Structure formats: C-alpha cells, structure tokens
C-alpha cells in the first residue's frame, strides 16, 4: 500500500494556514533565503537533479525548462505562473492557493532568481474571487516582509510579482495563449517555434510553469534533490496532488508519490458510492482518454498512464458509476470544447461544432450507427491537425468512449434516445437511496 505524503498540503488543516505568520511558523521563506545565496545555475541544477516534472499536464522536466533560458543575453527574462486551472476535473491548484499562497510566492522567488527574471506574473483564472483575495494579500504581505521588491533577502536581487486576473477562457491555460492574453490581446495560441524560452512574454525569454510545479520548489531546495527523487517511480519523481471527484464516498485531495493507483486511492476514499460500481474515469481531466475498471491498477505516473493508452495530465480523477450515460458525459465535454475553441484554426473550430451536432443527434434519438464512424473520422481529422492541444484534447473523450462503450452508443440508436435515467446519477438520488 502506497503511503500518502503530504508536503504541499502538510499544514492545510491549520485555520490560518494561508497567512505569512503560519507559513513562517513552518520554516517558510527559508528556502528562498538559502537559494539566493547559491549560484543561479546551481539552483537550476538542483531542480534538474530532483527530477521534478511539470504538473500542468505535459510533465516536461522543470529544471530543463529553466535551463533553456539564454543567459548573459542582456534581455529581460520573465517567469509566468499558470494558475488558470480550467481543465474539466482539475481542482488542485485552487485549493492549494486558497490554503497556502505563500508557498507559490516562495517558489516564484527561487525560480525567478534561477532564470534571472526581475518580473514574475501569476495568471489566475477570474472565476475564483476568494483565491484572488488570498493571493493578493499574500503578495502584499511578502512585499511588506521584504521578500519581494528591491534587494530582497539583502541579496541585491530585485523582483516584482504581479497578479494578473483572467476573465473566463479555458484556452488561456495554453501557455502561448496565456502570454497573448497577458500582453493584452485575445487569448489565442501562438505558432511554435519560437518557444517561450526564446521569445515569450513581450518576445523575451520566458518560463511558464504550473502552480504546483513552482510550489514544489521550496521543499526541494530545503530538503534536497535526493529527498524528492526518493519518492515516486523511476522516471516520475516526487509527490503530487491527486484530485478525486465524482461518484465516490469521500471526494478530495490526496497528496501521494507518483505511481499510486486508483485502486489505492479509492480504498482511502471509501470506494465508489455505496451500492454502485465504477464505470469510467479520467486519469487527468477531460482531455485525457477515459479509463475503465480494467485500469484500476495502472500506476498513475507519466509512463504508466501513457502505456495504458491515456495521459497523466493534471491527475484529475473524475469517477463515474454505472448510472452515468457515457454518451451524455461525452456530449457535455464536447460542448465545452466547442464553446472554448478559440476559433483560430479550422479543424478545431468547425470540427468541434460537427462533433456536437452528431452527439446531440445520438443523445436525442435521431442518430444512426453510421454516425459512430463519422465521429471517429472527424476525430481523425482534428487530432494532430489542430493548431494547439485543445483540439487534440477534444477528441480524447470521444475516441476512448467509443473504444470501450461502443454498445452504449448503439443502444442510443436502437432505443431511439438515451436509455438512462439521468436523475439516478445525481447525488440527490443516492441520498434518497441511502435514507
């Protein structure tokens, strides 16, 4: 049985965990003071040695990303933290920021110093007022304590941190769309190369990292690379936040070493809700192909999940039991992608529109068996042909659900509509059954 390893979440149970006083009570800002006494390149090397990989979805090695920033180029460098967290199912960064915004700020100080940036931004989604408040206050308190601003930790190093609040657009989580948005434009992805490390914000070398990636850095500096890499699996090191939601007895956050399985997490969570059984789940948000009961023992690390045909993504474990109609679930996600498509490229803009039409026909009872091939054909034309990963992600729920639940799609054709009672999948139904 894998042991839980609360590091980021270690003090969330203290009522004032979000204040600078509480953060310092547990040694907060000592890692930044330590890092600022090191050579910036030594900080990058330490993060490389730890094996930390980006927690925003793709799992790119964080230290390597920092190492791509050209040095001695006499240009401004920027750090941008991606706190847009809008991938359906993903719900780890917002509770982290609400309970402990200072760990992000300390991580930003260390990362900015390592990549020689004098400006750092947090791009937080706009639909989370209280998270915005906590971050705002934390940044002000860090300035007041002399940890951000001029000559911080008396090291001669200057750093400005700016909180930038989004306004409701999933695509702004894509790092180049985020940069366009931060520059004051519509958030649409950019052509790569050049990558942000060469020409990012204001066409200057820029690192974009997820909240959890940067928040993991202070503990690595404090405890060492070996401490971190002792957790996890061969190529997926460290602890991470797994977010369990849906038809389970107790949903919530589980901080564990990479490689834990859903079977283990479900056991901790008291299993699937009483009287029901697991039908399908996402390992890392709606853009990662669905899994079924056959994948309960898949190690939830980058390699394990890929080998089983999906992606670790954001470790957003959304659990659906046998009362859930997979066609309804997939239609709803597809409507999301259609709505959030930024419209820049044709395969995604037109493709997601057609996917929705066909799925609506199936759900409404006017679909045919041939529609399944049409769906797969459309997905084939979107996947790999879209300008950014949003288009690819839109195909994941469709292709994976047809792979595992083709019969259920066909049942919508023969039944001339959805054979499920949608009320049975609500929490209210289970409350009644339990009473």
């Amino acid at each position: 049985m894998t042991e839980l390893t609360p590091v980021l979440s270690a003090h969330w149970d203290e009522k004032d965990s979000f204040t600078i006083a509480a953060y310092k009570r547990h040694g907060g800002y000592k890692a930044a003071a330590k890092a600022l006494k090191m050579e910036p390149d030594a900080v990058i090397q330490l993060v490389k040695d730890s094996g930390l990989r980006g927690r925003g979805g793709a799992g790119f090695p964080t230290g390597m990303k920092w190492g791509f920033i050209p040095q001695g180029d006499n240009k401004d460098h920027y750090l941008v933290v991606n706190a847009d967290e809008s991938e359906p199912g993903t719900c780890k960064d917002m509770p982290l920021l609400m309970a402990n915004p200072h760990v992000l700020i300390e991580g930003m100080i260390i990362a900015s110093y390592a990549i020689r940036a004098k400006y750092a931004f947090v791009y937080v989604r706009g639909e989370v007022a209280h998270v915005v408040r906590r971050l705002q206050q934390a940044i002000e308190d860090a300035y007041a304590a002399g940890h951000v601003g001029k000559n911080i930790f008396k090291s001669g190093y200057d750093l400005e941190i700016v909180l930038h609040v989004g306004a409701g657009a999933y695509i702004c989580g894509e790092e180049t769309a985020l940069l366009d948005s931060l520059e004051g434009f519509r958030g649409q992805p950019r052509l790569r190369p050049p990558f942000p490390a060469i020409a990012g914000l204001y066409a200057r070398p820029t690192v974009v990292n997820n909240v959890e990636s940067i928040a993991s850095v202070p503990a690595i500096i404090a405890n060492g690379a070996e401490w971190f890499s002792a957790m996890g699996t061969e190529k997926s090191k460290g602890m991470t936040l797994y977010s369990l939601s849906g038809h389970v007895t107790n949903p919530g956050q589980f901080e564990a070493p990479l490689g834990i399985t859903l079977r283990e997490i479900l056991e901790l969570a008291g299993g699937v809700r009483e009287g029901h059984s697991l039908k399908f789940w996402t390992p890392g948000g709606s853009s990662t192909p669905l899994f079924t009961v056959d994948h309960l023992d898949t190690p939830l690390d980058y390699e394990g999940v890929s080998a089983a045909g999906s992606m670790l993504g954001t470790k957003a474990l959304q659990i659906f039991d046998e009362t859930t109609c997979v066609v309804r679930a997939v239609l709803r996600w597809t409507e999301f992608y259609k709505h959030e498509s930024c419209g820049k490229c044709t395969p995604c803009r037109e493709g997601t529109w057609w996917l929705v039409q066909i799925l609506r026909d199936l759900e409404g009872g006017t679909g045919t068996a041939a529609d399944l091939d049409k769906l797969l054909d459309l997905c084939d034309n979107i996947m790999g042909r879209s300008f950014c990963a949003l288009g690819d992600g839109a195909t994941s729920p469709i292709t994976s659900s047809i792979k595992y639940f083709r019969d259920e799609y066909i049942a919508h054709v023969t039944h001339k509509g959805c054979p499920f009672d949608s009320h049975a999948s609500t929490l209210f139904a289970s409350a009644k059954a339990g009473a």
Partner: protein
Amino acid sequence: MAYSKQELSVMDTMIARYPRPRSAIMPLLHYVQSLAGYVTNDGIEEIALKLNIATAEVSAVATFYTQYKRKPMGEYHVGVCTNTLCAVMGGDEILAGLKDHLGLENDGVTADGKISIEHIECNAACDYAPVVMANWEFYDNQTVQSAKDLVDSMRKGKPIAPTRGPDALPTWKQNSALLAGLNDGHANEGVQAGEPSLLGLKLSKKGSKK
C-alpha cells in the same frame, strides 16, 4: 458617464503595474465593469484612450472573455456548473430548478435587477460537486433546494454566506473591483480549506498514528 479624477487615477495605477501598458487591458475591463456593472461603451472608449489603441481593439478583447458582460448583470450573478461532472451529480437539475424558480432563461436577469443566472464551466471545485458560484464565490455541495434558498436569501437582500469565501457575499460590482486588483480586505475571512481538501492529510495523520 465620465470618470472621476479618482477613478482615472486608479486606472493609472493599474497600468503602472505592468512593464507595458497594454497588459493592463484586462484589469481595466474588470474595473470599468465594477463601476457600471458591465463593460460600457464609455469604459471601452476610456481604456482605448488610456492605452492609446483603437476602441475596436478593446472591444475585441472584451468580447473574447465570458466574464466581461456587455449588458447589466444582477447585483448577484449566479453561475451553476454544468460541466460534465457537476451536471451528472446534480448541476443540470439545479440549473433547471433555479430557472424555473426565478422565471429566467440562461443569461437572464430578474426584473428588479437583483439576480442573474448563467450556466458555467468547470470551476476547479469538482471535489465539492455540485458547485454553484455567486459573484464568483464558492457555494459547494449544492442541492436544488439549497440553491433556491440561496437565491431567496439574495432577494431578501441578506444572501447566505459562501462556503469557502468571505463572511458576507460581496455584490457583483464589488467583486469586479476585486478582480481588477483592488484589495477589499476580506482575504483573512472564511475557511482555509474545506473538508475534501483536507481528506488526504487527515487520513495520512491517522495512518501515521497507528
């Protein structure tokens, strides 16, 4: 509406935060929304003037993002998450129940201007599903009845407090100012975390005591 000297100077402080002025367009849009309740033509003109760009460029940005509204919203703007997970867990029934209760369609506003409603996408709180947001504050673990009670409390002018948020629900305009970057002093209110956020930590502490 012409902006007051004080309002114009607030706009200047927003612009001064960034290395380049144009980056301030989003906080400026949140700010003009906080003054009128939505992004007015006056607001767009003022932002264009301040940033020295065309009004069409400001409109292009304003219309790209769903949180900027081009018509007045209610004093309390209610968003029901109907992305897949919340929808399945009860969000669809909550939205239908609220529309019926208020006699509103999606994006509708009550005649008295108190309450508006829209369906929203995943709000990063799935472990608290079904989720309802009011003026972008969290109302976790909702039922059809609790959501109706919430809007009823708004009608009476005494809204129920958010589950993870400040002690009292701010108005739409007040929270738009917050999103523009103006600290309202409520950061220390409310819980640090809800039960689901603490589940793994609690189990780990229990486990290590054995």
